[in-house]
């Protein structure tokens, strides 16, 4: 047997080194500029803008500026998710985040940068969200109302932790699930006045009443509940005498739309300092400030003896078709007057037919208004900030992309 064997053993290898590279033009972006100019001696304001994007209904940006006439540049703003609200207190910024159920405290450093100092959660209490404003009483006490608790939460703004909760008294019945909180204001003696609406908790579709509660956070008590059947107010405030004014027709005629109960009053009412009932001599119909048709309140602010009031005029048909007519193109009207003479309020002229001033703020005793374009279902993208002069005219300060929802002086 002969076996033939070749002596040539050539090893063949295939080496395959495989590349796929997608070629991209890398565009450099400018690096962050922290604006190193020290500004600790300058005034500092914050402006909160909300913008929308496809699939991302809200994103909040907080800008730090030195003057309300400065440009609000969102490229230099601090980004937050869309469920946050900011509030300035004692030279700090407190951002409460409804989505994460957090309160985060920031300091503004010498570079006008937000630097987180501390944070705490309210999720452990069983809260589901967190829509209400914060009421700051002093360095040790702040109050808020997370949804789903039927309790006021008292927390310490310095140590940033929950210190106690105050359950709703029986005079605030079950349907008051706190999901639609209106005004929340602190009197000079540290009492918190809270406008509350009651809704059918299963569908959030039926208003069942309204209340104003007065809470003493220091002693942990609910001092009083005003149970007259008035609608929730979107805003309230104290005059120089510490009398409390309550805008009792919130949510663009919400109570009227729902019609349940139909006797819910639409008024601006007053609780005089130290009293335990609404002032029966002060029950002003919204029409008293000169509006026509069916006025629906938007918001109100009091500063000293002055007030600023925003409302829309609606027809019956508009109300029947859509309770939220403001967002369907109805322009809001702005009135400026004194609490001692509501009837003498004057309408602040505003020449832009597609915009309305719908958010108002008091900064160091002066009124400021934010105008938004409601001509296209609230969907336009620029807001203007105006100062309301003593002569009831508008003085434009600055503008910003998106909706400006909050402005405040931090220091």
């Amino acid at each position, binding site marked *: 047997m002969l076996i*033939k064997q070749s002596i040539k053993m050539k090893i063949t290898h295939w080496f395959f080194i*495989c590349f*796929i590279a*997608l070629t991209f033009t890398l565009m450099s972006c400018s690096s962050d500029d922290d604006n190193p100019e020290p500004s600790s001696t300058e005034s500092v304001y914050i402006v909160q803008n909300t913008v929308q994007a496809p699939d991302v209904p809200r994103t909040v940006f907080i800008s730090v500026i030195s003057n309300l006439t400065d440009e609000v540049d969102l490229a230099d703003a601090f980004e937050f998710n869309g469920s946050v609200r900011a509030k300035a207190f004692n030279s700090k910024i407190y951002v409460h985040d409804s989505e*994460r159920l957090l309160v985060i405290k920031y300091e503004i450093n010498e570079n006008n940068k937000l630097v987180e100092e501390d944070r705490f959660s309210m999720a*452990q*209490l069983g809260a589901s969200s967190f829509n209400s404003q914060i009421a700051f009483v002093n360095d040790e006490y702040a109050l808020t109302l997370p*949804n789903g608790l*039927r309790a006021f939460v008292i927390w310490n703004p310095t140590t940033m932790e929950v210190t106690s909760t105050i359950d709703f008294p029986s005079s605030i019945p079950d349907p008051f699930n706190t999901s639609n909180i209106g005004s929340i204001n602190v009197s000079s003696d540290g009492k918190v006045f809270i406008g509350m609406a009651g809704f059918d908790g299963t569908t959030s579709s039926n208003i069942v009443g309204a209340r104003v509660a007065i809470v003493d956070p220091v002693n942990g008590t609910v001092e009083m509940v005003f149970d007259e059947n008035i609608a929730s107010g979107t805003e309230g405030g104290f005059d120089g005498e510490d009398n409390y004014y309550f805008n009792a027709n919130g949510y663009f005629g919400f109570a009227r*739309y729902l019609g349940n109960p139909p006797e819910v009053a639409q008024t601006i009412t007053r609780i005089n300092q130290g009293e335990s009932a609404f002032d029966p001599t002060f029950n002003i119909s919204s029409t008293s400030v000169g509006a026509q048709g069916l006025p629906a309140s938007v918001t109100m602010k009091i500063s000293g003896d002055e007030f600023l009031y925003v409302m829309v005029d609606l027809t019956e048909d508009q109300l029947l078709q859509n309770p939220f007519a403001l967002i369907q193109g109805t322009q809001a009207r702005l009135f400026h007057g004194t609490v001692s003479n509501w009837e003498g309020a004057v309408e602040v002229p505003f020449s832009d037919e597609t915009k309305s001033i719908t958010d108002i703020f008091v900064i160091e005793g002066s009124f400021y208004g934010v105008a938004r374009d409601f001509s296209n279902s609230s969907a336009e993208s620029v807001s203007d900030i105006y100062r309301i002069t003593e002569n009831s005219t508008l003085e434009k300060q600055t503008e910003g992309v998106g909706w400006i929802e909050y402005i405040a002086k931090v220091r």
Partner: protein
Amino acid sequence: MYLVKENMVLFLCMLTSLAVYSQGNILDRKIDIRFENQSIDEALTKIEKEVGCTIAYRLSETPKSRRITKVFKKTTLRVIIQEVWGSDHLSFLAIGNDITIQVVQQKKIKSQPGNLQGYLIDDRNESIPFATVAIKGTSKGAVTDESGHFEMKGIPEGSYILTISSMGYEPKEQQATIRPNKTTSLSIMVPVAMTALDEVVVEGQSDEVKELIESAQAVVVVETREAKVQTADLGEVIARTQGVNIQRTGGLGSQAQFSLNGLSKDQIRFFLNGIPLDAMGYINGLANVPVNLIDRVEIYRGVVPIRFGADALGGAVNIISNEGFVGTGGSASYQLGSFGTHRLALNVNHRPADKTYFINISGFYDRSKNNYKINVDVPDARGNLTNQTVERFHDKYLSRGMNLEFGIRNKGWADMLMIRGFYTKINQDLQHNFIMTVPYGEATSGATSMGSLLKWEKRLKNKLTMENTMGFARNETQIVDTASFVYKWDGQLARDLQDEIIIRAIPGERGSPSDILFKDKLFYNRFYTKYAINQNHEVRFSSAPTYEVREGENALLDAGEADRLTLDNELFSFINGVEYEYKSTGDRLTLIGFVKSYTQHLITDRIDLGGELFESDRKTNDYGAGASLRYHLNDNWQIKTSYERATRLPNLFEVFGDGFFVTENVSLKPERSHNINLSAKLKSNLNNKAYLNVELNAFLRQVEDFIQLLGTNNFFVHRNIANVSSRGLELSSRWSFPGKRIGLEATGTYISYINSAETGPFVAFEGDRLPNRPYLFASTSGRYSFKNLLSENEDLVLFVNMRFVNQFFRSWESVGRRDSKQVIPSQFTQNFGLTYTTLLKKQRLSFTAEMQNVSNAEVFDFFGVQRPGRAFYMKSILNF
């Protein structure tokens, strides 16, 4: 763009990490060689020189006087040697580059006969129908049936060589021993011919797949052959396709958002065998369809054929379930692994070749605890936070379903008439809120789907084909959230500052108590016909009416309380299409043109401010058109281009709102888009060293009247708000090596999805990339096969799958300080595994062990919502 930079290195590393080398079976190598009056010994020596191998044989066995003169072109060594020797009674043994040849001695045939039966399967675990099996040196032979089985009777006792041949497969010889009065059973694995592999984009064998890929349609076909033996679910498998991204909220059963070329949600339509997916029992979305019950997935990029009868803005996905099987057989698979995962799938077909009836039963059972670990901030009673790693404790998923088909075929009035019934039930826990910051301990959701369909097919004289499918589905979805306690991330009940267990003042973990049930009923008909005028021209027509009605109920309302959920919402849509196709002689050019018409009628009940019930309705008519072209430049290059003026009609919710917080907008217009694709495909065998298949696709989606929900804090409305431009490139590459020991695939996608709004709320961000959407992603996969591991019918396959998604912003990129931007971080995941397959007498058994997310990376598809870390799974599959 700066986001790209920091990940480019990682991306390139991933793409190059599969660089490998390989050596295939030398007998399968194809060479060119010429012999001129040479003896066998001279000829074999020449082969050794040409190929660089050694050939050993018994000199005494060579035909001494034989001389050969012949030219061989691209012929395998095996065939050349047989020709040189002048005999195919040779057996070969190839080890590396050493070939040993032995002459097979035929034994004397004895008188007692026996029987032979067998089962042919290819090296991709698919049965081989209609293959020829012959006994060398005899006149005996058989052809396999549609299930790959054959049988021969009355074979005299002895040892034989079987020769197996079939188009698309390498020639195969197999020894068989026949014993008297016995039946010999064989399972034979036959390699797929490399030329056949070269013909398809994704390895596919059926004529339907080849026809689809060779058509002018902008389609990618994802075969599930390999996925069936691996442990990844369908969502992960499809996400390896170019242009496709799937974002998940968690583990098995979680919500998945599918996007194709940048468009997503309702802009993409999903089907099972051409019927809307939610009308076929799969109500939990594409990603959770059991992969073992389907054959392939067809992804139509932006241009949707008329037969689907759908208004799709950005494309369609059609899942093809196991169909057309002839014979009796099926498969059973069981998978278990991390996070308490068990997945069972069963599919049994009985379709006798000589009978006119057929039955198919399939079912699945999926269960998972989804108790993977996540990192969260855990508060104490006062709200102080510490970051901890915790195990998810309330995320169980249970899904089970069953399909039953019965039909008849080959009747004069019907080629096929089939009735199908299905039932699916899902139970799912809800673990947390949208961004994983608040744990839930009791909230659950559930869904039930049941229905049936009747399908009829008939072909007349090979010219006219008609099919009609009519069906009904009833889907119910429920959310129950009535918890009285507060849960912590460790699953324990929360306590207050006095260390008392907290009792919720208002039940419900999501803000308010709910026990809501939605009931959807869906009736549909799909008629489709095509007429071949001649071999070059064909016209088609489709008509698809659909009627849907939704109502609901709130179980928490007291008797007599008005329940808004009980109000009817009805939708009627009627979509028709006409299509024409031209195929040039020789199939060099294919051209398709089509027009579609859309009719929609929306009806809804609402309650006015006075509490009175009233009805709103809206009718819409619209049209669309498109065209596709495929052209073979030469044997290697093919180009395709396609265009559709696509339309998506707004749904009932978008037009009428919810009657409360989302207000109606009856003037809402349909979303429209110009969709354009242009692709070039290269097929090359790289001089027989490897087979390369590369496809580059460029696409454009110019969307107008983009529908978006907008509003203030509490009140929303859908509006046509913006124009959006999506442009991108997709690249896919596939390598197969001789002998198919190694296969590599890589896909990459870059999408420039740009806001081009000139009015409205997004105008300030014109030119920005649309946020919250991945725009750069890539996948690679590779496999190495050990053929005939311990015996001829045992294979071992090592495989790896990797995926990279570049980070993206949650909001507009042009605003917000970089150090404060909310980012969904980059993810790079790797899965490794091995599959062992053995052939039993008539069955194929596979075992797979796979580790997913090997590096235990923290993976996020949505902001803040962490996906599973490292996981280990095992899976066994029996095909019978």
